[in-house]
C-alpha cells in the first residue's frame, strides 16, 4: 500500500441532538479498496458525505495529503475535483445527454480542450460499456445503465479517490450485477475506492479492507478475510450472521 491520501481524524457529526458519527479515525492509503458496511442508520453514508464535504462535520478534520480541507469554497472545489463520488440515485444531469454529462465537468472545472474531453468521455464510457448510448438522455436509460454512466462521468475527472455511496441500492438484482462487475474491474486498476455497500459478497471479494460501522462508531476495521470469518466485535458477528447465514 502506498502513502496516505485521505486521513479522517476524530470526526464527529450531529444533526441537531442526533449524533450520527462519533470520533471516526480512518486513514485511506493509495490503492486501497475500502468497503464500509453496517446497518441502515449507522452513519455510513454520512461519513462518505463528510469525506466529500457535502456535509460539514461538527468536529474533527478531513486531511488530504496531510493538508486539512477547510470550509473555503475554492479549497473544497479543488479537493472535490480530485475525489469523485458516485451516488445511490445516480444524479446524472437530466438536461444533458450521456456524452455531455461526461464532458461538462472536465470542460468547466478542469478546463481541458473539447477534443480531450471527448476522448476521455468515450474512453471511460467504453470501459463501462455505455459508449453506444452517448446521445441518450438519462431518462431514457435503465438504472444500471445510469449508474455505469455516473461511474464513467466520475472517472473522466481522473480522480485520485472514488467514493461510492450505496451505488447498487436503487437497482434490481440484474442491474446490480452489471454495476458490480464494472466496480470489480475498477478495483483491479489500482484506483483507490471507498465503497458504502450492502453487498456483503462483493465487500468480501473485492475490498482490501472492510470497515463495519455501528451507531456512528467504527466497530471493526480489518482485512475482509478476518472480518468475514472471525469478527471480533459481537455486533459485527450479529450483523454478518444475518447476511451470510442464508
Amino acid at each position: 500500500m502506498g502513502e496516505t491520501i485521505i486521513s479522517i481524524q476524530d470526526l464527529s457529526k450531529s444533526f441537531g441532538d442526533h449524533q450520527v458519527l462519533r470520533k471516526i479515525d480512518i486513514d485511506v492509503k493509495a490503492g486501497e479498496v475500502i468497503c464500509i458496511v453496517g446497518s441502515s442508520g449507522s452513519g455510513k453514508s454520512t461519513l462518505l458525505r463528510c469525506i466529500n464535504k457535502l456535509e460539514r462535520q461538527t468536529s474533527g478534520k478531513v486531511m488530504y495529503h496531510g493538508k486539512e480541507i477547510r470550509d473555503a469554497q475554492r479549497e473544497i472545489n479543488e479537493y472535490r475535483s480530485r475525489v469523485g463520488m458516485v451516488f445511490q440515485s445516480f444524479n446524472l444531469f437530466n438536461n444533458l445527454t450521456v456524452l455531455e454529462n461526461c464532458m461538462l465537468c472536465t470542460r468547466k472545472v478542469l478546463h481541458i480542450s473539447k477534443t480531450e474531453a471527448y476522448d476521455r468521455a468515450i474512453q471511460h464510457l467504453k470501459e463501462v460499456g455505455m459508449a453506444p448510448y452517448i446521445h441518450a438522455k438519462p431518462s431514457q436509460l435503465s438504472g444500471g445503465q445510469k449508474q455505469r454512466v455516473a461511474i464513467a462521468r466520475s472517472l473522466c475527472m481522473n480522480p485520485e479517490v472514488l467514493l461510492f455511496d450505496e451505488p447498487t441500492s436503487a437497482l434490481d438484482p440484474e442491474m446490480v450485477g452489471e454495476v458490480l462487475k464494472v466496480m470489480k474491474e475498477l478495483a483491479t486498476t489500482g484506483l483507490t475506492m471507498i465503497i458504502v455497500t450492502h453487498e456483503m459478497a462483493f465487500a468480501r471479494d473485492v475490498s482490501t479492507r472492510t470497515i463495519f460501522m455501528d451507531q456512528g462508531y467504527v466497530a471493526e476495521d480489518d482485512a475482509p478475510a478476518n472480518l468475514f470469518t472471525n469478527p471480533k466485535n459481537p455486533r459485527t458477528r450479529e450483523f454478518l450472521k444475518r447476511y451470510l447465514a442464508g
Partner: protein
Amino acid sequence: MGILLTSTTTPSGSLGWMFFLAQKYSKMFLQGTWITLYIAVIGTIIGFVLGYVIGLIQDARIGAGDSILKRCFLRFVKIIATIYVEIFRDTPMIVQAMIIYYGLKTAGINLSANAAGILCTVLNTGAYMAETVRGGIGSIEMGQREGAWAMGMSPFKTMLYVVLPQAFKNIIPEMANTFLTNLKMTSVLNVIAVQELFMAAKTVGGNYYKYFESYLVIAVIYFVLCFAFNRIFILLEKRMKGKDDYALAVEFMEDKQ
C-alpha cells in the same frame, strides 16, 4: 351630436357601431395595440431578467466558509430583495403606476408615460418572477446539484449549467402566463396617460358616447392577441421538449456490451 349628423350613414345596432368605430378609429386602435404590445414585451423581458436575478439572490445560501464581508453583503442584498418582492406583490399595479409616475416627477425625474409604464411592468413582473424562479429552482432535486458539486463544480457554475436550464424548462408555462397577464395588465397604465388600448377605447367611446361598443372592439383585440400568443407558447413548449428517442452510436457498438 354634430359629428353624427355629418357622417353619411348612421350605424345601427351595437355590431354596426363596433365596425364603424373600429374603421373610423383604426389608426388609434392600431397605435394602442402597438403600445400595449411594446410595453408588455419589453416590460416582460426585462422583468424576467430581473426576476431571475432576484430569484437567484433569494435562493443563494451563505456558506460556512464565506468571509465576513461576503456574508454581510449577501445578507444585505437578500433583505433588499425580500422587501422589494413583498412591496410589489402586496400592492395593486394601478397604484404602483401612479406612485412611480408621480413619485418620480416629485423627485424631479421626468419619465415619459411610456417609460414609467415599462418601469412599472418590469418591477411588477420581476417580483412575481422571482418567486416563480425560486420555485423552479426548488423543483430541481438536490441530487442534481450534489452531482455537480461532487466533481468540484462551483455553486455558481452548477446553477448556470445544471440547475437553471432545468428550472427554466419547468417554468416556461408560468412565464407564458406572466406575459399574458402583463399584456392585459397594461390596461391599467391608462391612469398615467399611456396611450395603450384601453386609453384608445376610452377616447373613442367618449367621442360618440358609445362605450360598450368601443370596449367590445378592444376586447376582441386583447382576445386575439392573447389567443395567438398562447398558441405560440404551446408550440414553443413542445419544441423545447426535444426528441423522445435517441440514435445509438453504432460506431461504438462492437465494444463489449
